[in-house]
């Protein structure tokens, strides 16, 4: 019994030690290890379909049934083309006016109601 208690105690003792020091090392030496969260970019997800307990058949077809392809309103661009600002002419041509409030305007959360029709 003592041997069993010792084996488990060694596991618990060194496991706990490993857990504590791993966390302490992360806090101590890993500084600023975070990126901007989705809330900083107003990226609130609007779920149109939520299904729990998918059957095998539903699992296969879920993505194809509910995926919604967004149409790109802009002319195709070669992916290896360097990014550049649009000219005024292009802005007029594409009918785009970026709604990014810049500069110094507060960034409000987008109103998603009615932007995307629910799929389901």
């Amino acid at each position, binding site marked *: 019994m003592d041997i069993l208690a010792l084996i488990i105690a060694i596991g618990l003792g060194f496991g706990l030690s490993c857990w504590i020091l791993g966390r302490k090392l992360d806090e101590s030496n890993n500084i600023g290890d975070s990126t901007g969260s989705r809330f*900083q970019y107003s990226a609130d997800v609007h779920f*149109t379909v939520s299904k729990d307990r998918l059957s095998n058949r539903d699992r296969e077809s879920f993505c194809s049934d509910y995926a919604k392809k967004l149409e790109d309103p802009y002319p195709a661009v070669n992916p290896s083309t360097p*990014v550049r600002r649009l000219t005024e002419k292009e802005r007029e041509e594409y009918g785009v006016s970026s709604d990014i409030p810049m500069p110094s305007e507060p960034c409000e959360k987008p109103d998603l109601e009615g932007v995307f029709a629910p799929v389901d």
Partner: protein
Amino acid sequence: MATLCRNCGHALVFDPASQKMLCEACGSFFEAEEVESEVKRLRQDLKAESVRNVYGDDADKDMMDCYIYSCSECGGEISVNGTEASTTCIYCGNPNVVFSRISRQKCPEFILPFTISKDEAIRLVHEKIDRGLFIPKAIKEFTPDCVRGIYIPYWIVDADYTNAMVISGQVRNGKSTVTRFYGRAGNMRIRRLPVEGASGLTDESSMKLEPFDLTKLRDFDEDYLSGFYSNVSDITYGDVRSVVNKRALDFFSEAAMQEIKASNKKVANSRPSLCINRDMKYAMLPAWFITFKHKGKTNTILVNGESGKVVCALPWNKVLFFTLLVIIGILATVVSFFALRGLLPVILSSRSKNNGRLLGAIVMGIIVLFATGISKVRRVIKNIVLTQDKAIFDFTKKRQG
């Protein structure tokens, strides 16, 4: 070309503390937007010569992409590579902005000026690392080899995103655990996502500088660059798409998984669609790059030039770490042993069906403790590699001045 003080003729630099152009010789301050000098007009006609023209084909191959300018203060030779927009004269130390060669489409629209000064950045780094239990003393007392304030080019992106995702997760079903599948479809609109535009920097490093307060952006004026280094964007539409796609997928999966009550959740299948607003905003965002050597390896610490966020993973004192690991391990083992020696006979003699389950839970707990601890150590080691990355060091170091 530097913007000169109208009082004494010395080169002006942007001062983060006052948010004004400062003449370090006579102490005069000017608003950046007010400095409408001849120099700005002259910059329009500023011409550079390629290294090949100056030195011929014998020039150093590493320098082939460089351009040569003359310093407006001393006439010394200033060499910048194809993506640099401002630098410092190696001979007289004066700031030089070489923005004229940038066409309008490549010129930024906005800039987030430095609010953290060089000394403040170093102080913030010391403040952070002085608290580090496992940071070696030699690092705590480091003297920077080089501290550079660099404006990094960013594209501020708006995008729409849809996805249909199948997530697998484990739930308890009576005595056993079963895998269930969940479906989530939906959309989101991403606003003002900064995508770093310098190919010389890794996205993994630059993303950690976030968040930047973009409400403080100002209309671009090249005088803000004075006294700092800067790069122009050299990434492609494919690069932007790939970064936004990855970030959007992360945001979507995070939101979807938050809704699902299960453990070990994983994305089993997904079908995303992304549409990026082509009218992206081009902005310069500030960062301090502080390099120092430790045991022959160069480490680069980043500091967000607007918020002061410090980003780095530093080498650790292994002797201290393993000594503490053994001491705490032995102490916890002794305590656990005496507790278990009393408890185990009671548990095992009760002949209950739950005995096996209890022992199983203890073993599982031990595995989780080890796995969590080791994963934290591995994360630190991975980020140390990023801090010692040669690419980020080259991005900082390969500049004149």
